[in-house]
C-alpha cells in the first residue's frame, strides 16, 4: 500500500501511521480541544434531552427508569473523551508543489488535492472556540461543483495566514 520506506510505524491503527505513510503533516493537536468542545456542545443537549424523556415518560409508564439516562450519558462522555483526539489524528495536509493536499477520515478516508492555480478564492476563518485555542481554519474555493469548498481545520492562526499568502502569491503569478 505504501511506497515509503518502513521507517514509519506500520501498525494501521497507530494514529501516526496514516499520515506519515502518505507524507502528510498533522494538524495542530490543540484542534482536539476545539473538537471536544464542539462535540460536547452537540452531545450534552442530546443527553439532557434523553434524560428529560426518561424522567417525563419512561418513569410514568413504569418502564426501566434510568436506563436511557445512564446509557445516554455514558455514550456522550465516552464520545467526548475519546473521539476528538482520534479524529484529529486522521486529518493531514501538505502544502507545496503548487498544490494543497488535504486528507481526512479513516473509515471513509478522502484525500483531496487542489492545485493552487485552480483556487478561486481563499477564506481564513476563526470561530469563537477556535479563537480561544489560537487556531484558524482555511477554506479554499474551487469552481468545481464537487469540492467547491475544501476546508482544512486545526491550523495555528499565523500558519493559516501564511498558507493563505502562499496560495495567493501563486494565484497572482499564474495570471501575470
Amino acid at each position, binding site marked *: *500500500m505504501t*511506497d515509503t520506506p518502513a521507517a514509519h510505524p506500520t501498525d494501521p491503527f497507530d494514529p501516526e501511521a496514516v499520515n506519515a505513510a502518505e507524507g502528510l503533516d498533522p494538524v495542530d493537536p490543540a484542534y482536539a480541544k476545539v473538537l471536544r468542545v464542539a462535540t460536547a456542545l452537540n452531545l450534552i443537549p442530546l443527553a439532557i434531552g434523553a434524560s428529560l424523556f426518561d424522567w417525563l415518560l419512561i418513569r410514568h409508564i413504569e418502564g426501566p427508569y434510568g436506563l436511557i439516562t445512564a446509557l445516554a450519558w455514558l455514550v456522550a462522555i465516552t464520545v467526548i473523551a475519546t473521539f476528538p483526539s482520534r479524529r484529529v489524528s486522521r486529518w493531514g495536509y501538505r502544502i507545496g508543489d*503548487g*498544490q494543497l493536499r488535504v486528507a481526512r477520515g479513516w*473509515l*471513509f*478516508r*478522502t*484525500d*483531496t*488535492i*487542489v*492545485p493552487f*492555480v*485552480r483556487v478561486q478564492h481563499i477564506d481564513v476563518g476563526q470561530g469563537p472556540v477556535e479563537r480561544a485555542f489560537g487556531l484558524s481554519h482555511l477554506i479554499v474555493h*474551487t*469552481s*468545481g*461543483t*464537487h*469540492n*467547491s469548498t*475544501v476546508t482544512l481545520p486545526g491550523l495555528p492562526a499565523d500558519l493559516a495566514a501564511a498558507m493563505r499568502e502562499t496560495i495567493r502569491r501563486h494565484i497572482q503569478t499564474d495570471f501575470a
Partner: protein
Amino acid sequence: MTDAAAVQAAPPPDDAADWQRLHPATLALAIVKLGPRSFQFLPAVAALGFTGNWGYIVPAILAFLLISLLAAWFQWLRFRFRVGDDEVVIESGVLSRQHRTIPFDRIQDVSIEQGLVARALGIARVGFETGAGGKENDASLDAVGLDAAQALRRTIRAHRSGEVAAPAAADTPDAAAASDDRLLFAMSPRQLLVAGLFNFSLAALAVVGAAMQFFDDLLPFDFNVFNPRDWIDLAGQYGLDQWVIAHRWIAGVGAGISLLFIGFASGIATMFFANWGFRLTREPRTLRRTRGLTTRTDVAVPVKRVQAAILITGWFRQRFGWHELRLQSLASDGEKERDHQVVPFARLDAIDPVLAEVAIARPGADAAWQQSHHIIALGGLVGALGATTGGLVVVAFGQALGWFGPVVGGLIAAASLFGVRFHRWTDLGEQVAIRRGFWKPKLTLLPHASVQSVDLKSDFIQRPLGLATLVFGVPGGSALATHEIPAIPLATARDLRDRILTARARA
C-alpha cells in the same frame, strides 16, 4: 420599441431617453401567469364557502385579480433597462429597488426563449448568460420585442467578437477558419419520428394516474373520467363486463396494443414538442441551439466553457448506433437540465464533428479499457439483502404481498452484479473516458484540463483490497452526478491522479 442596438456614444448616466421599458405585452403575460397562480386562491375561496359567506367570493376574486394586475403594472412601470456602450443596466423592484450592471465582457452569450403566448405576441425572453453560479445570478429581460432581442444579441456579440476575435482564433485554430455560422446538426421530421419511436415511454400513464387522483376529489359529479373503475361500472351497466370475461384474450391483446400505442405516441409527442426544428450551429465563439415546437428556445454554449462531454445511449438503441450527446458547461440548460443537450439523437458519425468543435475526441476502438473492481456491486447487494429480509418479515406476518421483497431483491442483486461489468475507464492522454451502465450506457469524456480538484477516497472495505475511488471536481453539471472512477487499484489511482494534475500544470 426602439432598436436596442442603437447605442449612442457615452450616454449620460441618467438620460431618461436612453432607458427602455419592457414590451407592454408583459402585462398580457402577467395575465396568462395569473391562471396557475389563481390556484393559490382556492383555499381562500373554500374557506369563504365553508363559513357560509358565499356572497364574498366574487368580490374577493375580483379584488385578487385587480391587485395582481396592479402589482404587475407597477412592476412593469418600475422595470427599466439601458443598453450602454459596454454594459447592460437593469433597474427593477417596486418597494426594494435593485440596480444591476452587467458589463458586455462578462456576458458569455444571450439566450432567447419564446413560449407559446410569447410567440403569438411576437415577444421573447432574453437571458444574459454570465457564467455566475446559481439561477438567481443570471439576469433576464422577461419580454422584449423579438427583433429588439435579436438586435440586442447582435450588439453584444459584435462587441465581444470585435474585442476578442484574435485570441479566440488563436485558441481554436481549426475552427477559426470558419468565421461564418455553420450548421453542425439539424433534425428533420423523419429523424424526429425515428427518435420518438425509440423514446417509448409509459410516463403518460403516470400522468393520467396523477390526474385521476387529483380530479377524484375535485369533480362535483360522481363520474371521474380519469378513473377506470367508473368506466368499469358504466360498462357493467350495459353488460359489457360479461363480454369482456367471455373474450378475455381479445381484451388482453387490446389492452397490450393500447399500452404500446400510448407508449409510442407519448414518446413521439415529447420528442416532437421538445426538438421540433432542432438546429445546432457553430458560431465564432459558441455552439448555438434552437429548438422547440411550442416553446422555442435559443441557447448558446460558449465553446471555451465546455467542461466535459457525455454520450448517452440505451441498451436497445445502442444496437442501432443511436446516441445522445450532452455537454457539461458552467451554465445549466434551463431549469430542469444541468447539461446541455446538443445532439438529441444521432449516429456517432454525426456526433463526432460536434465533439471536434469542442476539442474532445472519442476513444478509438483500440483504447485500453480498464475495469473497476467487482466490489462496487456491494451496495446493490446490500440493498437486495434489505429488500429480501424486509419482504420475508412481511411474509412472516402473513402478508402474501411480502413475496415482492425477495423477487425485487433478486432482481436488484442480479442487476448490480451484471452492471459491474460495464464500469470501465481509460486514460487517453489529454482526457479520461469513463463508461458505465448497462440499461442506459453512459460515456463521459473528461478533459484533464477541466479537473479542478481530485479526491482519492478509500474506505474500510476498499482499503484491505488495495482499492481507491477517484472523484473529480468539475465545474458545472449536477452535484448529484459527480464524475468518478470507482474501485481501481490504489497505485493506478495515484498514478492517474498525478498525471491529471501535472497535465493541468502544463496547460
